[in-house]
């Protein structure tokens, strides 16, 4: 890993200013449309909220206050939004990772033609619009949906998916699958199959080969897939809105609600919290996984 970045830095040194010029457009766009709004967001979260009618044409007053944060931490917001967000993020990423790894592995180890077809199918899953996708799940998961009809046919009690964590997690996991499969299969493909052949010739059966060779060598891929899964699931909005039925809500839904009440400072607090937990969890996971990656 580090040798690659050292080589990269050396190359930059040789190229002079060219890399900076090439990066400039992206950096300018990021500064204006990401960094600047992010700073704005952070500062607004410390501003005083003016309820409608208090001052004409003003939604907040630029004086420093912690009352927005106090409100967030002292009331039911932690249990109502923060905790469900973390729960959905972590569970659906873990489930999606477990489900997508075997698929990604078989794609990566397929002959080129088959690999192209399987990859195309994976991409096709991404082409379904978010609204169509989430309403399809509504049809499948509702009380009179396909699954519950089948379950009651077998004589079991119906399962409540809508308005529960389970429903939101199912929807989110499915959304993540295509991304994770895509990201994992790329990195598994980079693992030289002769490592696995070598292990088998040395006496390792399939399971031992997987645990000792394939899995450790795919840790970099797993690490980036997990980061992708966490960041994508953190910003879930339409899935909890439709499948959560207003009972299970995530931070993105809180932001939406507060903005519709024109409470920009509190919406900013929710956004800052979303950013904070995403960064914290991602950093933590990355730290743990990177420590395990021994490939130099």
């Amino acid at each position, binding site marked *: 890993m580090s040798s690659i970045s050292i080589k990269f830095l050396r190359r930059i040194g040789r190229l002079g200013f060219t890399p900076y010029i090439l990066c400039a457009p992206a950096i300018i766009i990021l500064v204006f449309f990401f960094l600047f709004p992010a700073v704005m967001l952070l500062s607004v979260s410390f501003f005083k909220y003016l309820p409608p009618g208090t001052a004409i044409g003003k939604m907040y007053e630029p004086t420093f206050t912690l009352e927005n944060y106090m409100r967030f931490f002292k009331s039911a917001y932690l249990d109502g939004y923060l905790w469900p967000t973390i729960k959905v993020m972590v569970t659906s990423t873990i489930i999606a990772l477990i489900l997508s790894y075997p698929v990604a592995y078989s794609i990566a180890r397929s002959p080129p033609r088959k690999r192209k077809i399987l990859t195309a199918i994976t991409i096709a899953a991404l082409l379904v619009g978010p609204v169509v996708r989430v309403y399809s799940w509504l049809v499948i998961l509702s009380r009179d949906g396909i699954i519950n009809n089948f379950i009651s046919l077998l004589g079991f009690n119906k399962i409540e998916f809508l308005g529960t964590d389970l429903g939101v997690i199912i929807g989110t996991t499915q959304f993540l699958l295509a991304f994770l499969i895509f990201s994992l299969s790329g990195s598994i493909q980079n693992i030289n199959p002769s490592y696995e052949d070598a292990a*088998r*010739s*040395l006496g*390792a059966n399939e399971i031992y080969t997987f645990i000792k060779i394939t899995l450790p060598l795919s840790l970099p891929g797993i690490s980036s897939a997990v980061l992708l899964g966490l960041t994508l699931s953190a910003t879930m909005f339409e899935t909890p809105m439709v499948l959560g039925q207003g009972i299970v809500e995530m931070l993105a839904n809180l932001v939406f609600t507060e903005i519709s009440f024109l409470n920009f400072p509190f919406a900013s607090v929710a956004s800052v919290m979303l950013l904070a937990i995403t960064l914290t969890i991602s950093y933590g996971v990355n730290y743990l996984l990177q420590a395990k990656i021994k490939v*130099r």
Partner: protein
Amino acid sequence: MAVTKIFDVELVGVTKTFGKVKAVDDMSLGIKPKEFMTLLGPSGCGKTTALRCIAGLEKHDKGDIFIKGQLVNDVPPYRRNIGLVFQDYAIFPHMTIFENLAFGLKIRKVDKEEINERAKKYLELVRLPGYEERYASQLSGGERQRIALARSLIIEPTLLLLDEPLSNLDLKLRVQMRVELATMQREVGITTLYVTHDQGEAMAMSDRIAVMDHGRIKQVGTPTEIYNFPQDKFVADFIGEANIFSGKILERNETEIKISTDSDLTLFALPAEEELKGSVYVSVRPEAIKLYKQRPPLKNAFGGSIEAIEYLGSYVKCHICLNNNQKVVAHILYTKQVPDYFSPGKKIYVGWEHEDCTLINR
């Protein structure tokens, strides 16, 4: 199928197809105990597939593979106890050299002390003592190659398979390693199957060579047999260089065989031991062809002119066009007179002895 005790490894009619391509086609081969056998052939001739079938990494469609007299068709690779060295070495990058060496031993439940001892012993064998704590990324190509060899030998396998292990090394190291590899093989005394497309490696290292083309074995023999008595046009052409004339046998008696080539040359060869049909190929090695200023007193002597000359250090490669437009190549040892006598455009004679003509059935 009869299995003889002579062979450590025996392939009987092994066939492996990929889609429509027959990668290995009805291959039968026996490797004797402690023998260094080489599968030699151009890339894509099926030699690596054959090796992978023996290792069990590829499942053959037809035929039987025996290792030490035991039928292994349905034995998974991890139970065949075969040492395998890959072209790209496949040293596990997330493990130290010691962990790499210990990998196969831990599976075999060898106790810790013995693992340490054996790791030390095999690192000494491959002349890399003290390399236990390094990673593959810290080693050079040649060092990785030796570690791969040590890792495959440390499990004390019944058979060692090497898949073009030297092809990723630079020329000098390659030549040096092939001597070392052959020495180590003899030191350990392990039955070895070596796969390569490099005839130099095959000739230098092997007890016997099996020449392969299009999934089939063309000839099996010692390096000298293969070089001096090719039984097949492909073998004659692939091993070393050869001038190959196609022709018909005109006359044969107790002292010689007279052949007329399609290009209207009349060649004379010694009577052959094997059965010959009417149509034959005549193979003449370039180093057997000598150049003369005057017509030599040989029956195989023809006039021609030099077209081009390549100086290749110790010898000179002459491209000659005979008077009937037949092209031949001759290798002559470099002497100081060479540039004066033999330069492009010069009229010369070429000649060779009866015994230099090898006859191959068409």
